[in-house]
C-alpha cells in the first residue's frame, strides 16, 4: 500500500477500493464510468464532479442532519420523563454541534487521509487535513472523485456527530452534562475516528474486505457498546425497577422515529456515493427491512404481551434500519425483508428479556437496538449478500470467509469500542463527574442542569 504523504495523489488503489465499497462493489468499471461521465460535465478539463451525484450527496447530508436534529432528540426525549426532556434535547443537539467542530478541526483528517507510516495507517489516518487546510471549493473529493471534497467531508461529518449523539440514550436522565461533553470529544477522537479509518478509511478491516455499507459496525455497534458501558459505569437511575418511568410523550417518539426513517435514506442510499442504481438498491432494501422489522416487533409484542404498541412498532422500525445499514447496497429486497424480520424479533427480545435478565439500566435501549441490531446486520450482510440469496455478490463469493471477516469486525468493534469507552468514562468520571446529585436527579435535569422547563402549559 502506498503511504505517500502527498494527499490527493496517493493511495490510488486503496481509494479505488473504498469507492468500490461505497458504491456497492460495482468495481473499477463503475468508477471509471463515473469518471467519464464527470468528464463530460467537467467545468474544466480535469474536474470529475458530477452534478447529479453532487445533488444527491448534498441532499443525503441534509437528511442525515435531520436524523441528528431533531430526530434522535425527539425519539429519545419522548421516552424520558418530562422533567428530563430538555436534558435529552440539549445533549443530542449539543453533541451534534460539538461533533461537527471536532470533525472539521481534526476528525476528518484522522479518519480519511493516509498516515505516513503504513503500520499506523492500519489504525489511524494522517494530519494533513487538520483544519481542512488542503481543501478548496472546486476540488473533487480524493475519496469520491464524482463529488466535491467539502460535500464528502460534510457527509461523513454527519455520521460521526450523529453516532456520538446515539450514545446518550444509555444513561439518559442522570448523566452530568459537563462530563458528557468531555466524553464526546474524547470518544469521537479516540473511538469513532479510528474505527471509521479502520473500516472505511483504509485501515486493516478495510484491507480485509469487511462489508459495512453505511455503518453497521462504525456507527451502530460502536454506539451500542459505548452506551452499554456507559450505562453500567454511570449506574442505574434512582428508583429504577421501583418507580414508574413511563415515556412522557410517545407522540414525540413517533415523530423522532419517523424522521429517523426519512433521514436514514441519506445515510444508506447516500452511502452509495452517487445517484445511481446502487443508491436505488440501498433505498429499496432500507424500505423493505424497516417495514418488515417494524411489523415483526409489533406482532411479536402483540403475541407475547397482548398489545400491539406504537412503541414496539417504531422500535422495530429502528431495529430494521440499524440491521440493514451495513447490508443496504449488498443484499436484495427479499433478503432485506428476511433480515428485517430477524432483527425485529431479536431486538424485541434483547430489549425485554435480555436487559431485564442482566439488570443494567440502558435507559433507552441503545444496546438492545443499535448494538444487537448492528450485530445482526453485520453478520446477515455476509449471508444475504450472496447472489444465490438475492444479493450482489456473484459466483466466486465465499460466504463463510466473509462471515469470518464480519465476525472479526464485530468482535473488534465490541472489544476496542467497549474497552476504550470504559476507560474514557472512568477518566471523565474522575475529572468532571458523570452523574448528577440524587436530589437533582429527582427534581429533574431540566431545572437543575439547564435552568428551564420543557412545558409551561
Amino acid at each position, binding site marked *: 500500500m502506498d503511504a505517500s504523504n502527498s494527499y490527493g495523489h496517493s493511495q490510488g488503489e486503496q481509494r479505488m477500493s473504498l469507492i468500490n465499497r461505497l458504491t456497492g462493489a460495482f468495481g473499477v468499471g463503475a468508477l471509471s464510468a463515473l469518471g467519464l461521465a464527470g468528464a463530460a460535465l467537467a467545468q474544466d478539463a480535469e474536474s470529475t464532479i458530477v452534478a447529479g451525484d453532487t445533488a444527491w450527496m448534498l441532499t443525503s447530508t441534509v437528511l442525515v442532519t435531520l436524523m441528528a436534529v431533531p430526530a434522535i432528540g425527539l425519539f429519545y426525549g419522548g421516552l424520558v420523563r418530562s422533567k428530563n426532556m430538555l436534558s435529552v434535547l440539549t445533549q443530542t443537539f449539543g453533541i451534534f454541534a460539538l461533533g461537527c467542530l471536532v470533525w472539521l478541526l481534526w476528525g476528518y483528517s484522522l479518519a480519511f487521509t493516509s498516515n505516513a507510516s503504513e503500520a499506523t495507517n492500519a489504525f489511524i489516518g494522517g494530519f494533513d487535513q487538520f483544519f481542512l487546510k488542503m481543501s478548496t471549493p472546486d476540488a473533487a473529493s480524493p475519496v469520491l472523485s464524482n463529488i466535491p471534497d467539502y460535500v464528502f467531508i460534510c457527509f461523513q461529518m454527519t455520521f460521526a456527530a450523529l453516532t456520538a449523539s446515539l450514545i446518550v440514550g444509555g444513561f439518559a436522565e442522570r448523566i452530568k452534562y459537563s462530563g458528557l461533553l468531555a466524553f464526546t470529544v474524547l470518544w469521537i477522537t479516540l473511538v469513532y475516528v479510528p474505527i471509521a479509518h479502520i473500516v472505511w478509511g483504509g485501515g486493516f478491516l478495510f484491507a480485509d474486505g469487511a462489508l459495512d455499507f453505511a455503518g453497521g459496525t462504525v456507527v451502530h455497534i460502536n454506539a451500542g457498546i459505548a452506551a452499554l458501558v456507559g450505562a453500567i459505569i454511570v449506574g442505574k437511575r434512582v428508583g429504577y425497577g421501583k418507580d414508574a*418511568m*413511563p415515556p412522557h410523550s410517545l407522540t414525540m417518539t413517533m415523530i423522532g422515529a419517523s424522521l429517523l426513517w426519512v433521514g436514514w435514506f441519506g445515510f444508506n442510499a447516500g452511502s452509495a456515493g452517487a445517484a445511481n442504481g446502487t443508491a436505488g438498491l440501498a433505498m429499496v432494501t432500507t424500505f423493505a427491512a424497516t417495514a418488515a422489522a417494524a411489523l415483526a416487533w409489533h406482532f411479536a409484542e402483540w403475541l407475547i404481551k397482548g*398489545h400491539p*404498541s406504537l*412503541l414496539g412498532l417504531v422500535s422495530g422500525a429502528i431495529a430494521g434500519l440499524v440491521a440493514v445499514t451495513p447490508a443496504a447496497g449488498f443484499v436484495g429486497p427479499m433478503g432485506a425483508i428476511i433480515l428485517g424480520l430477524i432483527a425485529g424479533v431479536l431486538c424485541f427480545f434483547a430489549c425485554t*428479556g435480555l436487559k431485564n435478565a442482566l439488570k443494567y439500566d440502558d435507559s433507552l435501549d441503545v444496546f438492545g437496538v443499535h448494538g444487537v441490531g448492528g450485530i445482526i446486520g453485520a453478520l446477515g450482510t455476509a449471508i444475504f449478500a450472496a447472489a444465490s440469496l438475492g444479493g450482489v455478490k456473484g459466483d466466486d463469493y465465499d460466504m463463510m470467509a466473509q462471515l469470518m471477516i464480519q465476525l472479526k469486525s464485530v468482535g473488534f468493534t465490541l472489544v476496542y469500542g467497549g474497552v476504550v469507552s470504559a476507560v474514557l468514562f472512568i477518566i471523565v468520571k474522575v475529572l468532571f463527574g458523570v452523574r448528577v446529585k440524587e436530589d437533582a436527579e429527582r427534581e429533574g435535569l431540566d431545572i437543575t442542569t439547564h435552568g428551564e422547563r420543557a412545558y409551561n402549559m
Partner: protein
Amino acid sequence: MKLITAVIKPFKLDEVREALTALGVMGLTVTEVKGYGRQKGHTEIYRGAEYAISFVPKLKLEVAVKTELVDAVIEAIVSKAKTGQIGDGKIFVYPLDHVVRIRTGETDTEAL
C-alpha cells in the same frame, strides 16, 4: 350552607351539570383528579417495562349550596352520574361557614 363534593366519571360531567342547573344551582367548580378505589386500573407496557396504573381519571365537582338544597343536589348527582358499574364515584357533604362573592362582597347565601 354546605359544600357538596362529588367524584364522578369524566364523561358524566355535562349531564350532571345540566341537572344541577335545573335545580337552580348557579355555579360549580371542577377539578381533574385521579381516583383510587375498587375500580381497577390497567397495565401499560413500554418495551420491557410494565406499569400497573392503579389510578383512574375522575372529575371532582364542588358545589356550595343552601342547606335545604342538599338532598335534591345529592339525588340529582346520583341519578345522572350513575352507570351502575364500579367506579361511579362518591359524594361528600361538608359544613361550610361562610361564602363571599369577590366581585360584590356579598356574603353567604347571597353569594352563591
